């Protein structure tokens, strides 16, 4: 050992201890990403299909209930994840556009209220053959839930993308599109599994699966050190399994088995599992990414780091 060299090895870090803190979020957060994404996309489907008159009534109605149920469940999951759940209302104490969490809390509040109101208006219309006010309120609520639903499916990508966690901020531009496709696929799959074998749903599922296949390709082709947790060890295999089940598998099933309702159902069920795994995978990858001190310190990734994927680009 030459005087002046570092005993700690060639990579100067402080005993390899993490520079960043692990995300403290527990399982509720990836579950919320999944449920909120599906609910948001369901509200969009409800609003668009509902404007087409009577032929899609049952589809629009189920989509509205999915949105309402998902909105309520989302709020519950987010409150559960708080360290002080009784202070949930502090989320609505200020509106901070520079905080994606604040934007998300307000969006969720508006979305779950509007989606709930739209579904409730359905109920009132059935029971009372409700008059014009109910229809107007129902439609307005439906439109608001669709508008906020678009934010619900996309903002979660901004939420984790705009953080100090290397694997997340590296993909801050991909994540909102990735999560939107995943949310759309979830909503469509749920509606199909509820028995709606609709041409439009199949087309949307194809679009979502194609987008997910592209997102998977972007991740796999990225040789950056920051992407390692998406490709190696537990978090990598969860992300990869999620990617395959969300992208190529439903795409092939729907294209090859275009005329088979069974194939479409199978595609829907697998895509739903894929969407859930995708959220869990990104969450787990963020936790692993935070543990690695090399990226925040600008050092090359550890040679001894477990790597099951292709070696990082030199």
């Amino acid at each position, binding site marked *: 050992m030459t005087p002046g060299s570092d005993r700690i090895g060639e990579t*100067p870090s402080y005993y390899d201890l993490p520079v960043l803190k692990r995300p403290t979020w527990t399982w509720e957060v990836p579950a919320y990403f999944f449920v909120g994404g599906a609910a948001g996309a369901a509200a969009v489907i409800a609003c*668009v299909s509902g404007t087409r008159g009577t032929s899609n009534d049952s589809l629009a109605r*189920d989509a509205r209930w999915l949105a309402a149920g998902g909105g309520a469940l989302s709020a519950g999951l987010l409150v559960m994840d708080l*360290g002080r759940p009784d202070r949930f209302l502090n989320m609505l104490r200020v509106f901070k556009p520079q905080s994606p969490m604040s934007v998300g809390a307000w969006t969720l509040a508006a979305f779950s209220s509007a989606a709930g109101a739209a579904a409730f208006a359905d109920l009132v219309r059935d029971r009372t053959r409700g008059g014009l006010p109910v229809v107007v309120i129902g439609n307005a609520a439906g439109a608001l839930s669709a508008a906020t639903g678009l934010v619900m499916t*996309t903002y979660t990508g901004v939420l984790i993308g705009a953080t100090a966690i290397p694997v997340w901020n590296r993909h801050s531009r991909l994540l909102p599109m990735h999560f939107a496709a995943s949310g759309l696929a979830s909503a469509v799959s749920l509606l199909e599994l509820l028995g709606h074998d609709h041409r439009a749903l199949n087309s949307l599922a194809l679009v979502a699966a194609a987008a997910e296949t592209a997102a998977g390709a972007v991740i796999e082709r990225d040789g950056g050190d920051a992407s390692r947790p998406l490709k190696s060890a537990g978090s990598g295999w969860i992300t990869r399994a999620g990617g395959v089940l969300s992208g190529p598998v439903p795409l092939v099933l729907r294209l090859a088995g275009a005329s088979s309702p069974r194939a479409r159902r199978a595609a829907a069920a697998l895509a739903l599992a894929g969407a859930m795994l995708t959220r869990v995978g990104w969450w787990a990858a963020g936790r692993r990414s935070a543990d690695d001190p090399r990226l925040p310190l600008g050092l090359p990734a550890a040679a001894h780091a477990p790597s099951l994927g292709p070696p990082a680009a030199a």
Partner: protein
Amino acid sequence: MAITAFLTDSTLCIGCKACEVACKEWNQVPDDGYAWSGLSYDNTKALGHSTWRHVKFVESAPRWGVGGNAGDRLTWEFSSDVCKHCEHAGCLEACPTGSIVRTEFGGVYVQPDVCNGCGYCVVGCPFGVIDKSPTDGRAFKCTFCYDRQKAGSIPACAKACPTESILFGDLDELRQRATERVDALHDRGMSDAVLWDAQGTSVGGTHALFIVRGDPRRYNLPPAPEVPTVYQRGAWQSAAFAACAMLASVVAAFALSRDGGGTLERAHTQPGTAI
């Protein structure tokens, strides 16, 4: 009101941890367990919800004039870490409740009566400082002894430091003093002394400056910290694009399926039938 700062000079630190103790005492910060880390004399390992000052013990190869001052002894350097109180603070910008605020002294302060423990500040900090307490549920970090500063006193850690390794004072004055100190150290032959100051980064400078020897990365001080807000523009643009694409797809899918009558031809399932 003066804009204040810490200047932590590791060349004067003797690793006594009086700063850690004074901080805990004054702020009534709970203990962090009694686990042995095996990493030199550092059993605290990092800043966290229950550690607001943290003395790092950096061991290196024998070097004349450093640590033991003999060529056959390991060198041993100490540096007391603390919240950087960034000019563009990731935690403050992330906080959805407005719990985290900027004080009149320029510090970043978490109001414990407002925090609801959402944890978003934890992933917003590029230095891994703020953390959520699993027992309490809220996020905690160095308060910059806001209460003491308001009373015209200096932070507990700086007060307790026996070697003036931790200096507290006016930010501009301390920055000037730090440059002079590094020059003086160079003149004395300590040519590896450097000032860690994040002024040129998106963090926009900090209210905690550090003088260390050698590569600051040995002390886990990031060379180019980024406030996560810089990723937002691209992410929101992508979100807007994704939202438009999704809306267009849904509209197109339902408009195009109109002629075909919606329900797929060979599908015999009735809507509403569960499988």
